[in-house]
């Protein structure tokens, strides 16, 4: 994987900026630390970005914490608490958190010029800093945390040189520099790479979804905040006017009791309708998701609560108009009436589905605008550029205009 692969796709100015900054930073050490090697958005991001950092001449490493189940139960609780829906964290839990951080910090070589610590799990690595500039990259929305949990974490995060959030609204007030980096998608990853029509058709055929009428698609976990029941209701309202199919594609929910419950409700609500297809995709079905998005006529993301919602950017990249809930990072991606529609109700969703099915030319125009919006703002090269910029800015802290 090389930066050159993005020529003709990403903004040429972004590629030039990366090359220029990389020429100054070449050979210097960058370290990323997170808690999982595979699965989840952060691992996905690092899998794609680390080879690119290497390609542009940085001495980059990606280290993953080693931990067992009790630690991850604690960090899941911290994660939930930071989003305002956790259980109280006991002294023992914080001790376990500190112990695993200490052990991992002792095991991993933390010598680097620029250290990026992702999310709360390895946040205490900062206590074992040897040198360099350290930044805490928060990928989650911590705007409404449980106070006690945030109070504890704030003391830890306050020791970093800076932090990065995905959306301004997701942040908390901190005594350190806070940067904004919007998440991005990789146009060359399996999830987004161009597929030939034959492959798209083959995936639909294999998954038992005929392409004989317009397809509405929502790709999401079976989670109440993604409102899959509302999606079915909206589809039913729209179907009175336009014959269509609905595909709800999500992961298997075997380790998530709440997900199983939602899935059961969805299956019950969809029962008896052969035009509703509930697909349980195994992990790492990126190419299948890509094909489903490419074969759809309209992509839905009817979230009532959302993180950044990068699945919206994935669909827009494939020139699909997106009808999505006005939540989290979605309004940054769906420009009302231009790349799709923001909706607040089942009725609103149904109305917008009808509008787009009635006017495929408008849907096509939205798809084109959506792809360009993503190309300019949400491709992985933009992320690389911003990381290099932040590294530079933190090393030249007194300057507001920095000449490279």
């Amino acid at each position, binding site marked *: 994987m090389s930066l050159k692969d993005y020529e003709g796709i990403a903004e040429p100015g972004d590629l030039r900026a990366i090359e220029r900054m990389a020429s100054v930073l070449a050979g210097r050490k960058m370290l990323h630390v997170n808690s999982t090697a595979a699965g989840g958005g952060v691992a996905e991001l690092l899998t794609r970005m680390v080879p690119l950092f290497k390609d542009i001449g940085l001495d980059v490493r990606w280290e993953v914490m080693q931990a067992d189940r009790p630690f991850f139960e604690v960090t899941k609780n911290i994660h939930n608490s930071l989003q305002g829906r956790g259980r109280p964290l006991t002294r023992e839990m914080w001790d376990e958190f500190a112990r695993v951080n200490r052990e991992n910090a002792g095991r991993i070589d933390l010598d680097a010029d620029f250290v990026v610590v992702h999310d709360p799990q390895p946040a205490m690595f900062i206590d074992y800093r040897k040198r360099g500039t350290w930044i805490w990259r928060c990928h989650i929305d911590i705007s409404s945390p449980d106070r006690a949990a945030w109070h504890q974490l704030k003391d830890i995060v306050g020791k970093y040189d800076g932090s990065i959030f995905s959306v301004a609204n997701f942040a908390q007030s901190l005594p350190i520099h806070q940067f904004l980096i919007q998440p991005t998608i990789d146009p060359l990853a399996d999830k987004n790479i161009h597929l030939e029509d034959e492959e798209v058709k083959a995936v639909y055929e294999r998954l038992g979804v005929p392409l004989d009428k317009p397809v509405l698609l929502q790709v999401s976990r079976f989670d109440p905040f993604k409102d899959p029941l509302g999606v079915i209701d909206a589809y039913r309202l729209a179907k009175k006017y336009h014959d269509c199919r609905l595909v709800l594609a999500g992961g298997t929910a075997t380790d998530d009791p709440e997900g199983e419950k939602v899935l059961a409700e969805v299956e019950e609500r969809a029962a008896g309708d052969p035009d509703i297809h509930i697909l349980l995709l195994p992990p790492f079905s990126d190419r299948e998701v890509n094909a489903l998005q490419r074969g759809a006529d309209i992509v839905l993301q009817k979230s009532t609560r959302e993180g950044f919602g990068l699945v919206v950017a994935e669909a827009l990249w494939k020139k699909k108009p997106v009808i999505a809930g006005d939540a989290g990072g979605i309004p940054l991606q769906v420009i009302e009436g231009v790349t799709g529609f923001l909706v607040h109700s089942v009725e609103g969703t149904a109305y917008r589905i009808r509008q787009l099915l009635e006017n495929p030319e408008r849907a096509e125009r939205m798809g084109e605008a959506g792809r360009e919006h993503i190309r300019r703002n949400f491709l992985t090269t933009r992320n690389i550029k911003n990381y290099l910029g932040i590294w530079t800015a933190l090393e030249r802290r007194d300057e507001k205009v*920095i000449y*490279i």
Partner: protein
Amino acid sequence: MADERTFRFYECFALTTLTGRKAADILDLLDIMKTVSRESIFHHMHQYFLKPHAVEPEFPNDFAVWVSESLGEPLLAEALANVNPFEFAKIEDLRFELMRIIHEYLDTYPPPRPVLPGREFMFNEGITIVLPTSMECGPQLHDFLLKLREVDYSSIYFHFYESRLRLDRPTDDFSEYLSTSLDRPGIAARIKSLDPYMYSTEVLREKIASLIEEAL
């Protein structure tokens, strides 16, 4: 620049930094506007010009956009949109003008309801990273035009908008170069007279390019 007849294009981008301060209604906005940093006022009045737009926003400053889209107060939004930041030599004067407009509105109308959570106005700041490019042009006008079409939109920002701050006078690098190095005062004057507040960088690029094409 290699010599005075060579124009070297720079590109740039902005890193957004968060102040942690946010306004849920117009009174909050006014209150924070009083004390927030000059960098923040500058950022919200200029960042439109340094952002890539697949779609042009309705208004070219963040305050007007928020008042229009989130507060739903078109009258106040229009008044704020009409403030041209390039007319103000000092940010403090710009801050004062924005506050004056909001006060005037509040003297006549009741304050609108607060926005829903998640729709607050977030006061941010920016750090600009400036990058030299290898794109240079010699003393030929058509060469300048070719490069002008090739550079990133951010180069237009740097040479047309940022120059006003850098040079501390209402001018831009393009018209300076055309006038002094290429001895084309006519085109330079026409470029210099373009109203910077009325264009995004992409539209401005086309505008300047067509003025040069006419001259060629």
